[in-house]
């Protein structure tokens, strides 16, 4: 027992242990799992592609439906489609993913029998988890698209374009959407970060061996190095996503200058 304590450095004072962990972390060593001795970074790297694949597929599905829906709702503001979309997205956005996932299992795996209940291995196993994530963020992305396009449609340049004879739809797609992209990219990057967080729950529902289920298992095993590694890992990804969206601004809207801080357009 004493030997094990010494080996795991549990007999050292807390600041020294934290310093040791921090020093290891910056040099790429997140320590080893208490449970099976596997290096934490290896475990995260092995499982992350699975989490990433359901998150990316979910995001793709969400964007594919939500952006067009948001645009149509904005252009046809007040129509029955707009109202239906408003109510539908509000309801979808209120459903807990840890309940929606099971409803989808009941519908597609039990009643229709066309998709597997849970697990990992074939492309079919990706569909329901990705759909669960997509429905949740799709709702908020669609509302955001609608709001920003509406804002753009109220701008003066739209009247000018209409006066010179451009069609409503081509103005929306060629001018408004382009201007709305800056905001849309920020929100998408943020939502994608939350999607990775939400994967914790979806991986538990669908028994997917990703980093989220790794963290949940680690919590119940009191496997602290794994928990610390997971938090550091997701935090890093979240920060990288924010950096990416900041860089994307300058590319989409050259008026924004991150270096000079003279930005005329509020981020």
């Amino acid at each position, binding site marked *: 027992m004493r030997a094990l304590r010494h080996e795991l450095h549990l007999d050292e004072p807390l600041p020294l242990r934290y310093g040791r962990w921090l020093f290891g972390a910056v040099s790429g060593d997140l320590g080893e799992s208490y449970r099976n001795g596997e290096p934490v970074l290896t475990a995260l790297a092995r499982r992350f592609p699975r989490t990433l694949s359901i998150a990316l597929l979910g995001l793709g599905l969400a964007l594919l439906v939500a952006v067009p829906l948001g645009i149509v709702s904005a252009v046809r503001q*007040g129509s029955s489609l707009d*109202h239906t979309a*408003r109510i539908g997205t*509000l*309801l979808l*956005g*209120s*459903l*807990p*993913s*840890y*309940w929606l996932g*099971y*409803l989808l*299992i*009941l519908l597609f795996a*039990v009643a229709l029998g066309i998709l597997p209940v849970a697990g990992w291995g074939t492309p079919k196993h990706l569909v329901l988890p990705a759909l669960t994530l997509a429905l949740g963020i799709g709702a*908020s992305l669609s*509302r*955001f698209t*609608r*709001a920003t396009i509406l804002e753009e449609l109220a701008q003066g340049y739209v009247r000018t374009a209409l006066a010179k004879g451009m069609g409503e739809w081509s103005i929306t797609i060629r001018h408004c959407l382009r201007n709305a992209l800056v905001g849309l990219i920020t*929100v998408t990057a943020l939502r994608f*970060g*939350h999607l*990775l*967080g*939400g994967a*914790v*729950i979806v991986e*538990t529902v669908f028994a997917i061996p990703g980093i989220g289920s790794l*963290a*949940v298992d*680690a*919590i*119940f095993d009191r496997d*602290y190095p794994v*928990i610390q590694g*997971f*938090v550091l890992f*997701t*935090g890093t990804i*979240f*920060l990288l996503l924010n950096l990416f969206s900041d860089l994307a601004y300058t590319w989409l809207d050259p008026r924004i200058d991150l270096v000079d801080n003279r930005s005329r357009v509020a981020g």
Partner: protein
Amino acid sequence: MSRANSKSRLVGLCILGFFVSILLGAPVLAPNDPAAIAPDRRLEAPSAKFPLGTDHLGRCMMSRLIYGTRWSLGTAMAAAVMILTAGISLGAVSGYYRGPVDLVLMRVVDVLLAFPALIPALAIAGMLGPGMEHVLAATVAVWWAGYARLVRGLVLSVRERHFVEAARALGAGDLAIISRQLLPNVLPPVLVLASVEMGSLILAIAGLSFLGLGAQPPTPEWGAMLNDGRPFLLTAPQLMIYPGLAISLAVVGFNLVGEGLRDLLDPRLSDGR
């Protein structure tokens, strides 16, 4: 447009009124003891004695859902009050005094906001161990940060205004200035944010419980009930359908009211996130 908004506000208020009356009247409304186990009456269909049937241990579903209001919504409301208290006071101190206190507090806020909220909450609740009070502590420890930053920003802009100068010239102390001059100007947008975020707070608390970190058996908490029902998804899906419906309906109610309040008090923020 605004007529549709006032209608959805009304629907939201009705839903919240429904839940508040259940929360307060639970002992009167529940037909049975929510924790009473009846091994010989497991997974029964709805009957006069058990209006929504029984769960895998023969407990009354209806009574468990009714008492669940107290655990799920009660915890979320307690969390909201604590989050607002911490966020507003720390944000006000930070924005009013600035200096080193501000510097330290805002770096803590930066760290907390550098994660999707569920991740640090999960880690804190995990380190503390299972229990509803730990879930409460974890959500408060994470969610206050956004409010502190909002309040700090608002205080920074208000503290330079002339009426604050005037109050100080009249001899008002720091506490009087913060509570009488600054806070009334800061509160409306903070309350709007709180009402819009209430739904996601409920989802996060029930979600941590669903993962097994929150309420422990036999506590009738909605998220924990969903977790308990998982093995019976295929044989008795109603065990998962009812608690999920309860959570969703409560969140719909808060979202309707929150968005209605936002449109009413701060039209600029409308659909902005």
